[in-house]
């Protein structure tokens, strides 16, 4: 199961479409912010990969990771953000579960690189 966490519906559509284009066949679930993800995990959903935006209302990417990085069975987390700010980049090093940091826009190559296709 793949979680896409981003409050921007256009980004979510682009990502889903890119996944369709590479015939990706895992289930994809979309969330608007970190809090929704925590709710879903609490209900027993265990994602294999989380594609995570940083800047979101209610609970942003960093706030989510502060909670999530204590969990057992963590997913591989990839940051997908339009922030190319070095502070965000450095902060990504603090979390072991983060496997990659990508600056939007994303394209076919980004998806291939994340999922090793």
């Amino acid at each position: 199961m793949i979680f896409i966490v981003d409050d921007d519906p256009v980004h979510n559509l682009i990502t889903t479409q890119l996944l369709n284009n590479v015939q990706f066949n895992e289930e994809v679930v979309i969330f608007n912010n970190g809090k929704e993800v925590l709710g879903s995990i609490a209900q027993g959903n265990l994602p294999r990969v989380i594609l995570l935006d940083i800047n979101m209302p209610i609970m942003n990417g960093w706030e989510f990771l502060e909670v999530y990085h204590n969990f057992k069975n963590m997913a591989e987390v990839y940051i997908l953000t339009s922030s190319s700010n070095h502070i965000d980049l450095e902060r990504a090093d603090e979390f072991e579960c983060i496997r990659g940091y990508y600056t939007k826009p994303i394209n076919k190559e980004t998806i291939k690189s994340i999922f090793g296709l």
Partner: protein
Amino acid sequence: MVGTAEVNFVVISNIFLVQNTLDSAKNSKMPSLSKVFESLSLSILITDEKFEVVYTNNSFNNFFDGNEKEIELKNIVGNKFYSELRSFANEAFNLDLVSEHDLNYTSLEGDSVLLNVRVQQYEENKNTYVIFIFKDVSQTRVNQKIKAYKESLDKMNIELDQFVYKTAHDLRAPLTNLIGLIGIMRNETDLELLSTYFDLQEKSVSKMDDFIQKITAYTKNTRLPLLVHKIDFKSLIDSVLNDLMYYDKSEFVKKSVHISKDLNFYSDKERLEIVLKKLLANAIKFSKSKDNISTLNLNISGEETGCRIVLHDNGIGIPNAIQPKVFDMFYRGHASADGAGIGLYIVKETILKLGGTISLNSEEGLFTEITLFLPSLKEK
């Protein structure tokens, strides 16, 4: 020449020394205070009940260019300063109070210093005197000002950092969407999908435009001076409501406006419009679903020094926990808050610029009420 060098090196213990000396004089009839006073770097002046000079110490004489021959205080310190000291002396006699005042003193040569004057009456051998203790606090006050400036600069720098960070982010977001959309459109043949993508491109561009407009409004508010006119609320509200007519959900919100008659209110029309438009737009945006009867009441009434504007809606309300944060820069409090989180920040800053206040009262799921008080910027 003003003897600043001497009075600058005042240490706090000197004040206590004088204080203690005064106290012991009262209690144990210590014969003379003048020996102690001569050695102080504080300037001391003692007058009797008739405001005649009884004593001045070395530091006082040096500072005010006095000499032993001149005994007329008025001639030594100048008319203006003299009358100020005199009124303090009266106060000290009549009320038996210790008072402190900051006074500007300009010497005959034109040097200006800020003097802190401590005034206290005391009795000795059944005579009553007033003792004045002068301290040059020019540097202290300048330092305090510098410190305050520094603090406000630090705050502005943090805001600026945040601003640049968020601006870069929010300007890039719609652009990256455009690029992403173009990427997936390139090989797309389904016409229906393509049409959806075009719509989304349009939305992204509008979003970016909207953000740039808000930034412009923000900088306008901070940079441009106030332009004060008499406010015609009726036409102002009409124009705002007209702008909001085509907003999503606007047609489902029943709006009622009450404006007191004979309001004689002056303010900056353009800034006021920015504020009202944003607040009304929020009330519409965060109204409940169509099934409810959504209402929005706007009440504008006169106050002694300005006007009060109360905006009440029965929308989704704001949870208690986030109420203190909604006016923060870039704070987005709701999942459907799809903007930059800058609207209410601009409202708050604009209200500040207009010299007014804004307060929020809301209960989640029930209502939001925003109250503005704005001073009239011209005398009635």
